[in-house]
């Protein structure tokens, strides 16, 4: 059998890759994809603990996280389309209207 902390290491590595993507990329779409990576890392942890504690609750929470990811993707991509229509850019650091 595979020890539970292997899954936790996998989850934290995936989480870190997602954080690197969010912090370093300029393309807003790739930033949204990195957020999906982070949510998947959370799901791995939830399912691993669900398995370890022999309880189904972690899997239910993972389903809710996936629901959230779907809602977030829909709203985020709608925002990106609205943004692209107004500013003709998908670079996060060029969207600085509120900065001075």
């Amino acid at each position, binding site marked *: *059998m*595979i*020890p*539970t*902390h*292997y*899954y*936790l290491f*996998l989850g*934290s*590595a*995936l989480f*870190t*890759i997602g*954080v*690197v*993507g969010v*912090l*370093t*990329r*300029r*393309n807003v*779409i*790739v930033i949204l*994809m*990195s957020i*999906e*990576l982070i949510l*998947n890392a959370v*799901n*791995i942890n939830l*399912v*691993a603990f*669900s*398995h*370890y504690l*022999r309880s*189904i609750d972690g*899997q*239910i929470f*993972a*389903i*809710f996280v*996936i*629901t*959230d*990811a*779907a*809602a*977030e*993707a*829909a*709203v985020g*991509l*709608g925002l*990106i*389309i609205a943004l*692209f229509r107004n500013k003709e*850019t998908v670079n996060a*650091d060029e969207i600085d209207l509120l900065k001075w």
Partner: protein
Amino acid sequence: MLPQIAFFTLSIIVLTSAVMVITRRNAVHSVIWLIVTLFSVGGVFLTLHAQFLFAVQVILYVGGIMVLFLFVVMLVNLDVSLKQAQFSRQWHVALATAIVLMAELGYGVYQGHQAFPLAQASGIAPSMQNTEAVALALYQDYMLPVEIASILLLVAMVGAVIMAQRKFE
């Protein structure tokens, strides 16, 4: 032996394809690599005996969300952005911060790893299949959260339509 081989193969695929997602220049390539990542995360769910979540992952993530991403990437496809710098100016600081974060997470998990013995064979209720157990929990104990999640999806759908619609003046 077989579960270990499956787990390590899937982990390597997950991590390499995740790195490919955040390093590709072309956003379409990133989406394709993200699909590979999500598929292998589904495989990791399978090694944890979460068959229903595997199905949800493939149908909802790979089938639904990723197609949405591909549509938007192709809608806002900019040939200009392919020739621009892909990483923001503060990427050194960001990378250093992320390495510190990884070290902290790894140290924390390593310190606590004795608290987690081997993952046992799934013993949620041996008489019950995984999908059955999920269904019972969702529609009995988690009835109200399911309703709230459905309202959240409705709100997100209306919000996406309103935000993406063209304004006629």
